[in-house]
């Protein structure tokens, strides 16, 4: 063992770990550049290295990228990687109120802790955990996805039924394109653009980031509150106190992350959501979860970094990738002639153990590296004038979306979803339920159809869905998680509560006719979507139709219920539209134009124009000529620099 440890901390490996973590953190912080891509770009480089060094470099960049995803989640409300979705729930509210620096430091501490737990599990518990993961069949994956969906109740902004409608909408979006389980083309309406379906990461960027940009240009308000009067260092002491208060939370979340990571195909996004859900249910704290409770960041970030070590468990022990980046690493090892799977731990123990110590080392290095880069990221976002922030971020969403699968169509889909998300939010349909549906849709559908096929074959559908012990545990947790937000009401109905009437049960103001009409319009649109799906699924084969039809039916029922509730209570949720509509509309309009320009003028020119044009609506005060030149110059420099980096550094084939 000591040999392997010494091997791992050879100067070369140490350097690789350091570079890998730093590069990974930066890549992960850019929405669109995922851990999978970061690792894939590196693969050719690793061919010239020994297998253990190659593994250390890839492991380091992977773990860094998962942590880096937290920056954009906290500072821009946009998860840099899907693993950081739940980080936005509390991270962004914290940043909004001026605690972004604290949130970033907490994310770093949690990531390091989670990463260490995952790597230690890989070191000591890999074979038994790998065997345990195999007990998860299609039914369990289905129920796990449903458990993830139980978070709807928590992330619905004010109206649970609207959350359900949003989640159904997300589940339906996830079915667009060529079906994974039946290979049939669904809901593309003959459009080639929709053939590949809605790519999850680009949808995340659209739904979360575009509304932030639109609202940013609408008013002259600052993006983030500067409560403490600027930079206040790392706030390590405060962060440490939060970690101590969340001792149980961080341990539980790390264990959840490790176990979910060890499930092949589940991955960091589900781990983060499950850990968040559990933390919320057990949570104490001054702030509520979803409104800036640091516990939410602790849970998500420790869980998603624990999936790194956890995901390597099936990858190394079974030769089955635990997470998408693991699939790339597995391929790279195969090319090097290293056989993973059952023989690896016996045949090539030196590689495995050197790598695990390297991963532990990289995780420890993430503490200083992550704190420094985090401080820089916070400073950059906090200090940047709006007129520079908006064009640069808008450009990053475009190039990041393109880079995911080198496809211009995804840019259009991203922008359109962004506008849909903005409009929906104004009517009280938050982005998060839609995202939950979108992320969990394909896992839920595949698990459902597979279980259905197996259940019908053995003639025991009921037993297949409700007769397996692990399923029953997940179902129980799901029920608890669904009911938890309604606990005060349930207690009151049961007549056993002495509490004063909870805040949300106080008589709410009855809305005027115009607001009610707007809400009705919102329900009508979603009802029409559901109806369209029902009509379209009539022409599909049963395997392809069963899932979307079920979801659309639920959606219709909930829409009808919502309309009935609205007419009875005349209670309307939603956000007011603030600031200038023209400025707001200019953001998606400019982005759509840039997307249309890309095939004609090339990426660099389209991006430069987008950057230059968006400085105008984002600028609210009058500016001197020198100020404009400086602003335009710096925006263009950043845009062109990033274009070059993507083209040459990351081998993205930009048109």
């Amino acid at each position, binding site marked *: 063992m000591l040999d392997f440890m010494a091997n791992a901390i050879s100067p070369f490996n140490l350097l690789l770990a350091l570079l890998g973590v730093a590069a990974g953190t930066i890549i992960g912080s850019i929405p669109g550049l995922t851990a999978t891509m970061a690792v894939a770009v590196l693969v050719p480089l690793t061919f010239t290295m020994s297998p253990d060094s190659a593994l250390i470099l890839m492991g380091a960049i992977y773990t860094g990228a998962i942590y880096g995803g937290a920056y954009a989640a906290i500072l821009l409300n946009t998860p840099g990687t899907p693993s950081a979705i739940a980080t936005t729930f509390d991270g962004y509210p914290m940043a909004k109120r001026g605690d972004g620096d604290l949130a970033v430091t907490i994310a770093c501490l949690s990531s390091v802790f989670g990463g260490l737990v995952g790597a230690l599990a890989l070191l000591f518990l890999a074979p038994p955990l790998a065997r345990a993961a195999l007990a998860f*069949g299609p039914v369990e994956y289905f129920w796990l996805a449903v458990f993830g969906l139980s978070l709807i109740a928590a992330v619905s902004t004010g109206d649970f039924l609207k959350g359900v409608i949003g989640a159904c909408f997300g589940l339906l979006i996830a079915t667009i394109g060529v079906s994974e389980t039946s290979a049939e083309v669904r809901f593309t309406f003959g459009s080639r653009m929709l053939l590949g379906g809605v790519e999850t990461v680009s949808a995340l960027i659209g739904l979360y980031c575009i509304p932030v940009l639109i609202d940013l240009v609408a008013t002259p308000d600052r993006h983030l509150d500067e409560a403490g009067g600027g930079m206040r260092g790392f706030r390590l002491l405060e962060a440490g106190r939060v970690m101590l208060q969340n001792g149980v939370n961080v341990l539980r979340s790390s264990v959840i992350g490790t176990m979910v990571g060890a499930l092949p195909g589940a991955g960091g996004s589900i781990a983060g959501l499950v850990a968040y859900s559990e933390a919320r249910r057990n949570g104490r704290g001054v702030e509520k979860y979803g409104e800036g409770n640091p516990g939410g960041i602790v849970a998500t970030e420790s869980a998603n970094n624990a999936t790194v070590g956890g995901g390597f468990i099936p990858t190394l022990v079974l030769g089955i990738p635990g997470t998408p980046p693991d*699939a790339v690493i597995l391929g790279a090892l195969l090319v090097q002639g290293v*056989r993973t799977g059952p023989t690896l731990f016996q045949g090539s123990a030196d590689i495995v153990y050197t790598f695990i110590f390297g991963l532990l080392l990289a995780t420890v290095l993430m503490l200083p590296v992550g704190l420094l880069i985090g401080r820089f990221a916070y400073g950059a976002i906090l200090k940047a004038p709006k007129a520079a922030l908006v064009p640069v971020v808008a450009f990053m969403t475009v190039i990041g979306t393109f880079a995911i699968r*080198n*496809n211009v169509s995804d840019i259009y889909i991203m922008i359109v979803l962004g506008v849909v998300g903005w409009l929906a939010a104004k009517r009280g349909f938050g982005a998060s339920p839609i995202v939950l549906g979108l992320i969990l849709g394909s896992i839920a559908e595949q698990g459902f159809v597979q279980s259905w096929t*197996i259940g019908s*074959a053995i003639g025991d559908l009921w037993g297949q869905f409700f007769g397996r012990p692990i399923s029953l545990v997940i179902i129980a947790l799901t029920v608890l998680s669904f009911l938890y937000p309604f606990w005060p009401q349930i207690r009151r109905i049961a007549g056993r509560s002495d509490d004063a009437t909870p805040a949300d049960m106080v008589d709410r103001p009855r809305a005027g006719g115009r607001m009610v009409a707007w809400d009705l319009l919102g329900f009508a649109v979603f009802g029409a979507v559901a109806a369209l799906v029902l009509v379209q699924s009539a022409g599909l084969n049963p395997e392809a139709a069963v899932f979307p039809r079920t979801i659309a039916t639920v959606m219709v029922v909930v829409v009808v219920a919502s309309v009935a509730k609205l007419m009875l209570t005349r209670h309307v949720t939603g956000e007011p539209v603030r600031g200038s509509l023209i400025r707001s509309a200019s953001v998606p309009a400019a982005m759509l134009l840039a997307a249309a320009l890309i095939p004609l003028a090339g990426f660099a020119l389209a991006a430069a124009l987008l950057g230059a044009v968006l400085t105008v609506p984002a600028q609210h005060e009058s500016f001197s000529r020198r100020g404009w030149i400086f602003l335009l110059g710096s925006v263009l420099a950043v845009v062109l620099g990033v274009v070059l980096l993507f083209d040459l550094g990351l081998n993205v084939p930009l048109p």
Partner: protein
Amino acid sequence: MIRTILTQAAAAILATGLAHAQDFPAGSVDYIIPFGPGGESDITARLQQPYFQDLYGEQMVISYQPGGGGAVGWAQLNGMAEDGTVIMGINLPHIIVKPKQGNVGFETEDLAAVYWFHYTPDAILVRADSEIETLDQLIEQARANPRQVIFSGSGKGSANHLAQLQFDEMADIETTYVAFDGTGSAVTALLGGQVTAEWGYTTVGSGQGDEVRMLAVAMEERHPAFPDVPTFKEQGYDLVSGAYRGIAVPQDASEEVKQQVSDAIAAINADPEFQQKMIDGGFAMADVPYGEEMDAFMAEKAEEYLPAAREAGIIE
């Protein structure tokens, strides 16, 4: 000193001489995989990469354009550079079956296939501790319990699925096929005991070693890496099938470019070291070059896949 200069000069002359003999490639070559990273298409492309660079002294840059089970990439191929600097991975049965399943943005004929360089032969696998030891035992069990022998496999209308359909007919049995989203999750279901057996590839046998038992492989001859595993043919079933992987270029590329790309892939395939790496990974070599051979091969495969897919209701 003089010797160094002389060797360098010689090397330079040799290099220019080679460059004259073949103006292929015109620069670095973009090798687009229409799937995400980490799958069989990616792995075999990665295996080719260093050999291409050795042979031609130019970079081969691999990028990914996933979506629609490959359809998104294939639908865009014909708009790309035609000078041989863009090549794209193609797969069978995908490019024959998919266009018949609906509007996927391309037709089989739109893709200028220039080489098929390997295939992953279909194989039936069970867990090492399964009571099923031979193909005959599996058939027996399937006869006694119609539909209750459950296979996992990668994809619907895929090589695994078509093999299951064809074999069910040949052996006159009725089994259940559960489609997973890739080989990884199909193997997971097998190892976890969620299914009786897997319609997988010989690569699974390589990856899983002693954890699984291959009952039969769908090859003409036994796989060199598994000399003890019989073929379906040996057991009386004429099943030779698998997922073929190859290279296509944009349709409007010149005949010369098509031939040059075909020759380049053939040259990599001829390298004994490359062959050994492929075989160790459980792949099986194929050599279908551009020209008449390609046309005949595609026609033969269409005749094999389409009736089976039609019968199973995968296509109309």
